[in-house]
């Protein structure tokens, strides 16, 4: 197996797939072994809560590379396979089927798994989590107009699932344990905008509310909410966050804390082992702290950079301005930066028209933005942040000022 000096990647998601492709593109001519527990070639997850969930796109549309291109990368893909242990002293990975394979360099792209609800009845059939193609297809089969879906969690996954279920004309009740939607990511008035969007589309949103227990004979039939109400449901979908799959790393002695601790080249505490994607706790120069991101963009771009670093070809450390998007109904929401403790907020555009940008400033510097149906402006803000150009908040607010001109003027 695998020839001499293979590079081994554990995890065949977005990060694992882009890392494999990048290794090859950068001239690595030794074997690449990709270990993944799913049966699919590497795929991207965003459509699983959007187009795939409503049946508008086939699951194959999520594959990162066309079949011929993936074939050309020439990866030994051990699908349906789990890594049981890493043996760093021997440079070997032990698989759950007992095999042991050597590595010259190892990349951990193990991602994360949905956090589980811990309430009575939470293991009844008909209660779904969303992470994989299989999860998406199972939940999709429950979305029908005669049913009622209980969505637990008012974060991105919960909101996208709610939008998909409404698109299928299904009754939707959404419970969120805190006092606002997307509390970790959005300032209050933007969360309110999203709340109105969903209420206007018929979602019954209950804030400060959670599920106390589920009941049902053969599958979930009803839920008791913490506000005392009992609701009949045909299915439930849970989106209460992701836990990093860092156990393999910690059990083999690598440093972990809220994910696998890496530097800005994806290096773990072992010089031959790297990590990328959702599982990494990595430094972010712009935020000035360590962060762990659960985003498509980080999974892709960090993996590309770390793959280069594994070959000693990374030109510069990983230092991107975090960027994230969500699609709900006809609304595209994009976030850039991780604004914290901002002291000034300016809006550009008209929220009533459904297309606007909100920028956050800290100490006179642009610290992040949220765009509603304004992708181009978000990109420009991101570029302004990346280049460190000083930006006058009043110019942002002025619709006659083109943001690309601010970028040009700063150069």
């Amino acid at each position: 197996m695998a020839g001499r000096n293979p590079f081994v990647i554990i995890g065949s998601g977005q990060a694992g797939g882009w890392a494999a492709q990048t290794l090859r593109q950068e001239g690595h001519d030794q074997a690449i072994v990709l270990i993944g527990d799913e049966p699919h070639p590497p795929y991207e997850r965003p459509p699983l809560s959007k187009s795939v969930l409503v049946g508008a796109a086939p699951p194959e549309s999520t594959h990162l590379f066309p079949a011929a291109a993936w074939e050309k990368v020439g990866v030994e893909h051990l699908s349906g396979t789990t890594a049981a242990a890493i043996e760093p002293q021997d440079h070997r990975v032990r698989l759950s089927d007992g095999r042991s394979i050597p590595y010259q360099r190892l990349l951990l792209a193990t991602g994360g798994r949905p956090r589980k609800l811990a309430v009575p009845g939470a293991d009844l059939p008909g209660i779904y989590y969303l992470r994989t193609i299989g999860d998406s297809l199972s939940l999709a089969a429950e979305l029908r107009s005669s049913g009622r879906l209980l969505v637990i969690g008012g974060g991105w996954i919960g909101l996208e699932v709610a939008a998909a279920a409404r698109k299928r004309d299904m009754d939707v009740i959404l419970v969120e344990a805190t006092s606002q939607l997307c509390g970790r990511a959005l300032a209050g008035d933007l969360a309110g905008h999203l709340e109105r969007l969903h209420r206007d589309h018929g979602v019954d949103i209950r804030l400060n509310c959670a599920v106390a227990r589920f009941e049902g004979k053969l599958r979930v039939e009803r839920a008791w909410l913490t506000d005392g109400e009992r609701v009949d449901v045909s299915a439930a979908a849970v989106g209460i966050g992701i836990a990093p799959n860092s156990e393999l790393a910690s059990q083999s002695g690598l440093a972990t804390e809220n994910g696998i601790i890496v530097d800005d080249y994806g290096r773990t505490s072992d010089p031959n082992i790297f990590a990328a994607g959702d599982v990494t706790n990595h430094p972010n120069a712009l935020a000035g702290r360590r962060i762990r991101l659960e985003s498509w963009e980080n999974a892709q771009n960090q993996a590309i950079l770390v793959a280069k670093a594994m070959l000693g070809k990374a030109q510069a450390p990983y230092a991107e301005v975090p960027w994230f998007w969500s699609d709900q109904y006809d609304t595209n929401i994009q976030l850039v930066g991780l604004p914290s403790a901002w002291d000034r907020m300016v809006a550009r555009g008209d929220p009533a028209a459904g297309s606007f940008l909100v920028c956050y400033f800290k100490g006179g510097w642009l610290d992040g933005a949220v765009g509603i149906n304004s992708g181009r402006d978000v990109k420009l803000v991101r570029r302004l942040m990346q280049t460190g150009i000083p930006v006058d908040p009043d110019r942002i607010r002025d619709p006659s000022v083109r943001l690309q001109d601010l970028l040009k003027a700063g150069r």
Partner: protein
Amino acid sequence: MSAAGHHFHRVASISEIPEGDALHVKLEQWEIAVFNVGGEFYAIDDVCTHAFASLSEGFVEGDVIECPLHGGRFEIKTGKAVAAPCTDDVRTYPVRREDDSVLVGIPAAD
């Protein structure tokens, strides 16, 4: 790209597409983005090859267009995909200038 076998249509006056900007036009069934790069005009497919997004609403940097949705990039002059997540190129269309008009050629129907 050869202009043979194309029908040219006027899509805009030169002043309607400022430098670094783009215009979305639909010619028959073709959804096209027309760009002004340094005073020269180029036309490529408007729809990104990764997911449904309009490149004319994207961000132009030099001669590269960045998709407004997911950040994939294409060379405006060649249509070549140059950044993840895009791996497939977009189609290019021949462009002509006549006086102050910009004309884009679409494949002639047989």
